[in-house]
């Protein structure tokens, strides 16, 4: 890659960040994040306090602190993925068709940077910011949980990386949608894909709980078709992968538990999937009349 191309890429990434800042996307996300973390801190404080009173006389079959910590932190993982998805979608909203319709795109596309490089630079800007955001919120929630209940997940880094890769995939899907759909349709479609993926994940979990092979298969297929869900589920699993006994079993059945480990296959597939979505977006964009 030539130095002039690198300058152009850095310029477009910078433009994505500046747009986010100037359009107050970050401000809105920051306010939502502070609100979420505040509520989470309050919730964690009361949950650990009350579960201590509740569990004071039990026989120790269920590790109430691990149960509470993993459930709360699973909830935090879900909220983090949701907020990260909102950010990824807003940072990629209308970047191709939407901007072409308003005339924002054409002055940039006629520059020597090239459409594929421009698209990849826009993706890099959105994916880096969204991934950094989810990791930061994850770490904040981790710290709150540790302070409130003296509990930490079995694996610290894996779930954070799974969330980061998950929002990068959502940013790529959103970018692909922006090459063909109008601004509103893009937002609706990507949120529906996000919701569909999570619903499929819940189906897989229910299938696992009631020992239904069909439901479990549906969930697994959906996880591979929409690997952000598979990564999220694997992240949830990593939180409690070393928790054994009844506590581990109950957590795996819960809405914020995960029964499927990531494995190298899922990670490799997620990376290939991401590259495939970006390649498809680049092909559609390169063939589009502006």
């Amino acid at each position: 890659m030539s130095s002039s191309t690198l300058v152009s890429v850095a310029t477009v990434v910078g433009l994505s960040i500046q747009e986010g800042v100037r359009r107050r996307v970050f401000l809105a996300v920051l306010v939502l994040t502070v609100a979420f973390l505040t509520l989470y801190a309050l919730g964690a404080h009361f949950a650990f306090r009350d579960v201590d009173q509740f569990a004071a006389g039990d026989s120790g079959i269920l590790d109430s602190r691990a149960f509470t910590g993993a459930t709360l932190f699973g909830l935090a993982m879900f909220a983090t993925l949701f907020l990260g998805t909102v950010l990824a979608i807003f940072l990629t909203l209308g970047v191709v068709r939407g901007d072409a319709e308003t005339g924002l795109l054409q002055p940039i596309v006629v520059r020597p940077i090239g459409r594929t490089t421009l698209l990849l630079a826009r993706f890099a800007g959105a994916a880096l910011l969204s991934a950094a955001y989810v990791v930061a919120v994850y770490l904040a929630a981790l710290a709150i949980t540790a302070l409130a209940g003296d509990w930490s997940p079995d694996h610290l880094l894996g779930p954070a990386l799974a969330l980061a890769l998950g929002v990068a995939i959502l940013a790529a899907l959103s970018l692909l949608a922006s090459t063909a759909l109008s601004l509103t349709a893009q937002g609706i479609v990507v949120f529906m894909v996000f919701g569909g993926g999570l619903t499929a994940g819940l189906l897989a979990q229910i299938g696992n709980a009631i020992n239904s092979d069909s439901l479990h298969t549906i969930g697994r297929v959906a996880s591979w078709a929409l690997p952000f869900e598979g990564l999220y589920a694997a992240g949830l699993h990593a939180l409690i992968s070393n928790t054994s006994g009844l506590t581990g079993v109950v957590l795996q059945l819960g809405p914020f538990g995960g029964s499927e480990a990531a494995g190298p296959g899922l990670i490799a597939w997620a990376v290939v999937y991401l590259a495939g979505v970006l390649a498809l977006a680049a092909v559609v964009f390169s063939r589009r009349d502006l």
Partner: protein
Amino acid sequence: MNEPPVLAVTELRKAYRGQEALAGVDLRIGPGEVVGLLGPNGAGKSTLTKIACGLVRPSSGRVEVLGQRAGSPPARAALGYLAELFRFPGWCTATELLRLHQRLAGSPGGAGERHELLRMVGLADAAEKRVEAMSKGMQQRLGIAQALVGSPRLLLLDEPTSALDPVGRRIIRQLLQEVRGRGVSVLLNSHLLTEVELVCDRVAIIARGRLVRAGTAAELEGAAAVEVELESGLRVFEGATREDAPRIVADLVAAGERVYRVEVRHSSLEDVYLEAVGGETG
């Protein structure tokens, strides 16, 4: 060795879902030449311009910028473009916008180039003004400054004066003369015949996707008739030119006519345009 034309359009065709927008257009623009592209709405002017800068893919035919395929990186590096419908980020100041395009164009011009371009379009005092606070006319002039970033060899302007008041139009006319003086070639799409007549070296009229007339304004506006007032009444010699007038008068006098007045009638660019497009409007 002969330098290739700055813009060479050969047998260019473009169809949108079966609808033919361009039906075999040929056009050449030489170095430092300003060519006006006229035609009714939907005639194919914007499509031609967009193909030249790589925004639209042709169905067939060839477009080259300085010998390079239109849309290729070297071709894009050689041109500046202002679309008919454009928008810049509202939060950008004029300086920030030009700096952004300098980076994308790989221009080493720095602050000097930015000041010079803003001066040329009459926005020297608005360097730190945000786009969202500018009038449409100011944004259009900023758009022209943006198109000139990196000293392009070819400037493609699609209706660049549509939102400008008379003062703004004069600024752009002067600017076009200045860039022509620097050897920059310009393809100017416009509905404003007077504008085109004042600044363009050549005019091309496009209708229904075809180039129907091309030439200098003087060539296109050639004499349409010689009108002679005689004792017996008014006689009009259609198609006769100024050079034919002495012979016509001599023949009439020789035939015993008394000649009171002779007038060579010219067709205006508007007449030529209306005749060429057949009264079509978009």
